[in-house]
């Protein structure tokens, strides 16, 4: 049995009404959500404190300019929020933030998490020249029919975590009509209930049918398999690794947008990885030639080992890559394999310890020779 707040508005209007109510009632001082910021369909996250500006927000817009986990960590790194705010996040962004909390990079206090069952987002390249606006009707149609929208990010197409964990409030989106007449909002926690009390709408207790969620998940899993079959990461070998990552230009953009990569000074920017002239000269003695700047593939592999236990498969890395390396597919596949080995789901439970800081005395016996 779940608590559902039913609003007699479309989902589009309903979510905005919720944000407006929360701001006007003074229960929150600001809301972090997507909003329109230019004449074209450009959207950006904004911390809105004036309830009149809620009119321009587009909270469930299928675009992710940055992973909100990074924005929340920017807000709460130094200390927890002193006044309550709400954040409208997608499930992977929330999971990313929970992982960052485990890494001491933020705080959950005083934040009301509003999420939705997620249909996926378009890549940043699609968002050029207002293309997302053109695709919106088709996107909402796919959502209603419970089909996977054809041209969202590959990691979104194959994502099985479209139901948010740990959100206080979840907007029921998948299988529903976006511009219809009903908006159903699941209230998951006591905190959520306190915040919405006083809002216009019907609060009921309903049984959520799980079969349609299961069938949708199967569609996503089928897509996932298709995508992973196109790029058979497990068959890479050194040859294919060099082929795929050979054109990497070392811009480290993937690291900057990744929600899990939080290091103030990455190893690969530090003096540790600077080569002195003697190092270059020695390398040149051993090999006939050496790529400059060095450590292209080492960087990718080290980043894989550092973050794969926490990779939430958001897909920001592929979007940002200037040379179109399918990073998100490789990293999320690696993530899935590593997380399966440790039976760990990143961001599911803030109390659950990360795999590399805990152990069982009897495990991985097969590694011992």
């Amino acid at each position: 049995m779940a608590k559902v707040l039913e609003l007699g508005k479309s989902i589009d209007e309903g979510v905005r009404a919720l944000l407006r109510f929360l701001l006007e009632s003074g229960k929150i001082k600001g809301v972090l959500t997507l909003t329109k910021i230019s004449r074209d369909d450009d959207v950006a996250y904004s911390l809105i404190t004036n309830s009149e500006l809620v009119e321009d927000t587009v909270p469930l817009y299928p675009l992710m300019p940055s992973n909100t986990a990074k924005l929340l960590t920017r807000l709460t790194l130094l200390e927890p929020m002193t006044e309550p705010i709400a954040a409208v996040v997608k499930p992977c962004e929330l999971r990313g933030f929970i992982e960052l909390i485990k890494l001491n990079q933020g705080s959950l206090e005083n934040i009301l998490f509003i999420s939705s069952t997620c249909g996926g987002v378009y890549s940043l390249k699609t968002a050029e020249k207002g293309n997302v606006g053109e695709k919106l009707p088709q996107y909402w149609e796919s959502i209603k029919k419970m089909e996977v929208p054809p041209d969202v990010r590959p990691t979104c197409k194959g994502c099985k975590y479209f139901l948010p964990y740990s959100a206080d409030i979840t907007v029921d989106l998948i299988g529903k009509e976006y511009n219809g007449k009903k908006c159903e909002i699941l209230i998951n926690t006591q905190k959520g209930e306190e915040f919405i009390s006083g809002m216009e709408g019907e609060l009921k207790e309903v049984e959520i049918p799980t079969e349609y969620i299961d069938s949708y998940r199967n569609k996503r899993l089928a897509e996932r398999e298709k995508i992973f079959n196109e790029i058979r990461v497990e068959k890479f070998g050194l040859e294919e690794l060099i082929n795929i990552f050979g054109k990497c230009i070392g811009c480290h953009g993937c690291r900057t947008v990744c929600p899990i990569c939080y290091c103030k000074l990455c190893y690969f920017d530090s003096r540790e990885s600077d080569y002195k002239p003697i190092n270059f000269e020695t390398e040149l003695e051993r090999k006939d030639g050496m790529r400059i700047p060095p450590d292209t593939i080492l960087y990718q592999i080290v980043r894989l080992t550092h973050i794969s236990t926490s990779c939430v498969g958001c897909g920001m890395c592929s979007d940002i890559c200037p040379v179109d390396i399918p990073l998100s597919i490789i990293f999320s596949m690696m993530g899935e394999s590593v997380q399966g080995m440790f039976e760990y789901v990143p961001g599911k439970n803030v109390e659950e310890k990360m795999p590399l800081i805990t152990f069982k005395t009897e495990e991985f016996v097969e590694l011992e020779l």
Partner: protein
Amino acid sequence: MKGAKILVDNNREEVILEFLKKGLDRTCFDAILIPLKVPSEDSFAYVLLKNPSLLDRASALPPVMPVQGAKALYSLTKQGKFKQKVAIVMRPCEIRAGIELYKLKQTELENIFLISIDCPGVLPLSDYIKDPEKGTDAFKETVVQWGSEFTRPVCKICTRFSMVASDLHIGLLGAEDRNIFLIPRSEKGENLLESLDISLENDMESWVTKVKELQEERKKKREQEHKGLKSKIEGPDKFLETFSKCINCHNCMRVCPICYCRECYFDSDAMKLYPENYLMRAKNKGGLRFPPDTLLFHLGRMSHMVFSCVSCGTCEDACPVSIPIAQVFALVADNAQELFHYVPGENIEEPHPLATYKEEEFRDIEMPYVETYTKKEMKDG
């Protein structure tokens, strides 16, 4: 001006690589830093090589610039001078950026032999990677026409595609297809050609004339483009419209050869503030774009590096949302550099504008205090 005219049998690229092989064989230099084709054959990467057979995959004038050459030079020499002699083959903007980094004490040029080459422009990286075959053809046309619609936007208006302060310059302009020119630009260059038994008996008039002719054309085009661009982006509304897509990924800063700071000011703790600060700013304006300080990042980066901006355009290639960042920076850079009569990378002896001053200059920005300003009586303070 004297130089050497080399006859070309097959293609110009081959002759240049032959020349480099000779230099390696006779130990005029111990290693060469030059772009090589990557194994997947859809991009190029700078490789420091000792083995002349690796030059078979090299290109002195590749169709793309994935990594700005000055960044490769920086990676090589940032921790000290090279004891071995290295010849580096780069485009003029890369050479100029390398010299600017030398002024900023980030590269060492001792034992480095700079070889430049006339440059018609480069193709945007993502275009080339999508279809390397088509890109190769597009680049061939670009070399023949000396410019084309396929190149980076800033390459189309580049006026400094030749005649840089390198040690040796490979001239392609003014030489018919059957020739290339080898023009020494310093004593080091002259000595190199001498040690390779290449005599400087040819007059480089045709090169000088052709280069100057093209430079004049490009200057006019640049002025025109900049005027058009300025009217499209000036003023808060239009400027913010241009940057409305910016997601603050800082790719432009990271691929820029001039931006060398290990920890950029805009990534540092100075920009990471307490939550009250963000909430207070949001309350002041009704809302606060997140991540904040997008405009501050771009204007601040301009104020930090625009004197050394060589308009290479690598930033625009790296931008994931296709903001015309290189064009905007080129416009601002041109105006700032003109105000200070400074051309980045042109003269290694000339100090960086912010490292020097004249006592009598910029009198017009000092507000004159002509007469005592009289004011109505203030209320009791």
